[in-house]
């Protein structure tokens, strides 16, 4: 290759410049707001303070944070519990049909998020399809109010992010040599012990990648709680939204955003560890 040392940097420069100017700088800017006071009329007053971070830990907001974490965690666990068997079944399907099955598992992920969420309004509404179905089956009581509940929010999150989790788990499953499972059987482990001691530990990176993805996107989500929770369920995403668009408390919104990003980074690091463990790398451990 006749590329000299500066050529690659030159090629990457415009993209890098764009990302630095419109992603790094704005993020640093907004996060720096977290250290300033809110102006009397909204806006920002440039006096240094840590008060905004203290407010994040205020019981009122900490509760919302923990509550969103709980909802996000539930969605994550449910998504993994559904995605794992699905990914496993796809990885066991005939070689030829695996890409097709995978394609159709991921396809909904690329259709509009709002529309996919809206579909659940249609299904869960008091006048929605499920209530109609129940009535048709002979149910005569009050229509069930399934919409605007926590379960509706969780269902929506799981539904929207499931394809990605299937993809992440499938990609580790498909890279797993079938001979490892055979070796386990050969050494005397039945199918269940083989799954628990070989298959599962080796596919944890996929589970972690999918799980972190669902959790991060769920905890910062504001569309699903707004549409399926009817605004009754404040999640961190909604809180940030409110600080910027209604309460006009940008410094506090910035502090909340910082908390979100820190959570995300912590989870990504955790995921990297899980990946390193399964691939047999040992980081930070004594070599003895």
């Amino acid at each position, binding site marked *: 290759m006749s590329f000299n040392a500066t050529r690659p940097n030159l090629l990457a420069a415009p993209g890098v410049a764009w990302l630095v100017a419109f992603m790094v700088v704005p993020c640093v800017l907004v996060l720096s707001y977290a250290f300033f006071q809110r102006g009397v009329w909204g806006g920002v007053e440039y006096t240094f303070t840590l008060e905004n971070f203290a407010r994040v830990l205020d019981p009122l907001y900490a509760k919302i944070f923990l509550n969103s974490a709980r909802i996000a965690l539930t969605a994550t666990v449910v998504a993994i519990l559904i995605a794992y068997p699905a990914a496993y079944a796809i990885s066991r399907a005939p*070689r030829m049909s695996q890409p097709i099955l995978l394609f159709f598992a991921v396809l909904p992920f690329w259709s509009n998020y709002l529309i996919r969420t809206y579909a659940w309004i249609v299904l869960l509404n008091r006048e929605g399809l499920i209530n109609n179905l129940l009535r048709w089956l002979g149910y005569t009581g009050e229509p069930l109010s399934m919409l605007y509940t926590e379960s509706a929010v969780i269902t929506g999150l799981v539904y929207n992010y499931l394809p990605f989790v299937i993809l992440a788990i499938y990609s580790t499953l498909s890279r797993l*040599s*079938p*001979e*490892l499972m*055979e*070796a*386990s*059987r*050969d*050494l*005397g*482990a*039945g199918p269940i*012990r083989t799954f628990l*001691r*070989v298959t599962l*530990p*080796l596919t944890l990176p996929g589970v972690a990648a999918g799980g972190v993805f669902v959790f991060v996107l769920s905890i910062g989500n504001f569309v699903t709680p707004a549409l399926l929770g009817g605004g009754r369920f404040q999640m961190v995403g909604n809180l940030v939204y409110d600080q910027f668009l209604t309460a006009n408390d940008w410094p506090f919104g910035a502090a909340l955003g910082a908390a979100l990003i820190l959570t995300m980074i912590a989870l990504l690091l955790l995921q990297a560890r899980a990946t390193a*463990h*399964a*691939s*047999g*790398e*040992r980081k930070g451990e004594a070599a*003895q």
Partner: protein
Amino acid sequence: MNASSNPILRIEGVGKAFGPVTAVDNVTLDIRENEFFALLGPSGCGKTTLLRMLAGFESPNAGRILLEGKDISPLPPEKRPLNLMFQSYALFPHMTVRQNLSYGLEMERLDKAVIRRRVDETLATTDLTQFADRKPEQLSGGQKQRVALARALVKRPKVLLLDEPLGALDKKLREKMQLELKRMQHEASITFIIVTHDQEEALVMADRMAILRDGRLLQVGAPEEVYERPADRFVANFIGVMNFIEGAVGADGLFRAEGLEVKATGNAGPATLAVRPENIVIGPPGDQPVSGAIVDIAYHGLDRVLHVKTAATATPLQVRIPASGAGNWKIGDALSLKIDPAKCRLFQSIKRGTPCPRPLHSSRKRPSARR
């Protein structure tokens, strides 16, 4: 080789087909206790499928597999007292060497102290003690190979199955490990069944060997038996180097080809004479009955292989002579040669055991099972 000649493992009329393709065709074979047995054949001959049926990863369409007289065909792999050493080694990447070795014993629900002792013993005999706490990723190819072997041996199986165990190693290491494997087999007194496509490896290591082609068993015997008395033309060609001379057996019982006559027993009709390069005697022109000329000389260390053009064959005959006696021969020299009738084989063109042309099955394998 060993005191007992009882078969520990009996393969009885075993057959396996994948859809329309027959991978293993009615194979019957006895494997004796404590012997080092090689399943040899070109790729796609069914040897790996046969091994996988012994281990329990494929179930035969026909026949039975008896271990010490008991039919094990219905048992799943984990219930069979046989262990397989995988070609890819299949070491668990998330476990250390020690954990890999302990795994199989934990499955037997043995006492922790017992597991520790047996693993330590096996680590010592396989020279792995210092690597006990490493993960497979931190090992060299040869070390991984030893861990794979140790992991199977520590279970003290009745029969150890080895699928191309040395395939991934370089030539030097492979030759060293061939002897190492033999030593371990001897010390552990376990029956070894090795699958290989390398005839040299089988000749070096095996007490007895079976040659397969297109799923069918062609010949079973000790290495010298197979080398000296190959059952058919395919085996003759597959094992070692062989010269083939096309010709015919006359009414007088003599095999004749262009400019060549050998006393061989056979029925009158077309025939092929097979002779090893070391069984051809050469001399100066006119000294021996067949005349020829040297077209090439290949140096092989201790000996040399002369390629000799004669009237009898289209491709030059290969003649192996000790390097010490080869000093004077040069390319282009004329010479004469003689074939020892006692040391050659005659294959009649239409003959029992001659493999009939069948489609090769090499492409048909469980796709997921290979590498």
